[in-house]
């Protein structure tokens, strides 16, 4: 599903240049649930942003679902993001003046889907994260866990090839974190490919594979025995 070869990324900071990714080689099969771990500054978020086409690598190859991702302009990137990727952010990033259902329906709007169809689909995905009754509530009327579930529903609504989650539990307490991870595991059980960036061991071990990143290179890439989050809930 994802193929990365010799990926480099450096940021210019004034006269210095900060080499963040120093040759990443990495591939993800369909249906995998991969945790990308590392301390802050290890380059994990940068990697995820490049995977999410929110950022661009300096060199290296990136193939997503057989499509080489290169020579991106903003328009092309936007179309790929819409078609291939779903995002879940640490700070949820819901649009605060749109209610839960409208938030979930937003990527569908950019897929040029009709309003009715959009709302039906949004409600269906809200149902899957167990928030049907909260469909007409604004984000500030929801708890952190609920917000993240809305965000996950939004990411899934576009039916992406890959779900990218950047510290999805970073802003949540552990109980809520496990609920969210439970949801992510269930989505993975349905055959969806998911990448989770985290620095929490317990969250990482709820994935099927852990990629350890340190100082811009992969130091360890291991398959782990998945801990089901539902055991903690």
């Amino acid at each position: 599903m994802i193929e990365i070869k010799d990926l480099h990324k450096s940021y210019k900071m004034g006269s210095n240049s900060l080499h963040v990714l120093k040759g990443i080689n990495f591939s993800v099969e369909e249906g995998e649930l991969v945790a990308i771990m590392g301390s802050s500054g290890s380059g994990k978020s940068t990697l995820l942003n490049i995977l999410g086409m929110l950022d661009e690598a300096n060199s290296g190859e990136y193939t997503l679902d057989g499509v080489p991702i290169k020579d991106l302009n903003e328009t092309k990137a936007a179309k790929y993001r819409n078609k291939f990727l779903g995002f879940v952010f640490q700070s949820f990033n819901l649009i605060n003046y749109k209610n839960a259902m409208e938030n979930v329906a937003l990527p569908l709007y950019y897929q040029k889907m009709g309003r009715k169809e959009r709302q039906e689909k949004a409600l269906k995905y809200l149902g899957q994260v167990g928030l049907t009754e909260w469909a007409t509530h604004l984000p500030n009327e929801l708890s952190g866990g609920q917000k993240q579930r809305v965000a996950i529903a939004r990411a899934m609504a576009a039916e992406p090839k890959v779900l990218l989650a950047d510290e999805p539990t970073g802003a949540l307490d552990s109980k809520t974190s496990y609920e969210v991870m439970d949801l992510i595991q269930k989505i993975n059980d349905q055959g969806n490919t998911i990448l989770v960036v985290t620095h929490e061991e317990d969250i990482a071990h709820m994935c099927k594979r852990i990629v350890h990143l340190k100082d811009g290179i992969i130091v360890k890439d291991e398959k782990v025995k998945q801990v089901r989050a539902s055991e903690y809930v």
Partner: protein
Amino acid sequence: MRLLFDRNTWQEIFGSIGKNKVRTIITIVGVLWGIFIYIALSGAAKGMDNGFESMFESIARNSMFVWAQSTSIPHEGFKTGRQLQLKLEDAAMMENRIPELQYIAPRNVKGFFGSEPAIIGRKNKSGSYPVFGDFPVFTKIAPKKIYDGGRFINDEDIDQARKVAVIGERTQQELFEKDEDPIGGYIKIDDVYFQVIGVHKFDPSGGFGGDGDIFIPFATYKKLYNTGDNVGWFSIAAHDDVDVVKVEDNIKALLRNIHRVHPDDERAFGSFNLGEAFNRIIGFSKGITFLSLIVGIATILAGVIGIGNILLISVKERTKELGVRRALGATPREVRSQIILESVFLTMIAGIMGIILGAATLKLINSFTQDIDFPYTNPTVPIPYVLGALAIMVILGTLIGLIPAQRAVSIKPIDALREE
């Protein structure tokens, strides 16, 4: 283009506008005020324009009066201070020599310029009213509305020196019974019986003349008051496209020549140039219209810049939202057009509200000035002005929306998302 007619686009825009009410209202007020000022000002200017126009409606705009005074320079053996008298044949001379003239109406009056008004009697009623001796051509210069069933003096009246009279509304009310038809009735003007042939409508909006004026044929007047070929003054109308000031000078030069007055004697003939006065007033009201246009457009501009400013701030505020939208697959084009459409839409809404408010204000002003003596009628803003203002707003709204829109897409989605 497809974007413009897509319901979804508009739902997104209504969503983002409707759910940021304070921002929307503040944004709208600026432009609303601008267009309101524009409409109210240019409407008021137009009202004044109309007011002046209706004041001069009852008289040809390029007309003038010329009358005789006394000389102030000795010439050809005549002493200074010689009283001059206009003659009927002067009219023919003027007509021949000055091609710019369209109509010349020699006139006489009893009841103005120091002479006693005529005593008009009917049965046991009587009153005094000014009596004018006129040619039919006079109505070409100063149109008179005659009530149904009546007419003004015609050429045959002149030829036969008929004893016929056109009376005013007030004269009719004072000499005739309410339900009596004055046409065909007889009145006595200074002891001579005249048949009434028409009643002229008094125009209160301005012009010259009163509601008691009586018009009789020039030829009859001449006989009645024994004035011979003497003319009190000439009412003259020039053709539409000529320089009335120059024509006035030509007429006076010609009259000085005919009456053997020194060519430099400015005081020998008096004149009042309505055309010139009219042009001055029109120029004044044109100036006001222009000024109101400038002020209005400047205010609209200020309002639109205000919209741009607020949108710019709101784009900064919404950086994260726009970043999210782009992460979810909004292309830069879509983001840009959303911001621009928001700008245009707000501008339009504000503009239309301003137009309605402005129109309401104009109506209010109109109803207040209805009954007072002020040159102000029917204040309207011509549709092209309104459409022009709307067009300006759409164009400016788009242009000003470009700045925040460009800013919105110039931030990389990754930076937008990172912004806290």
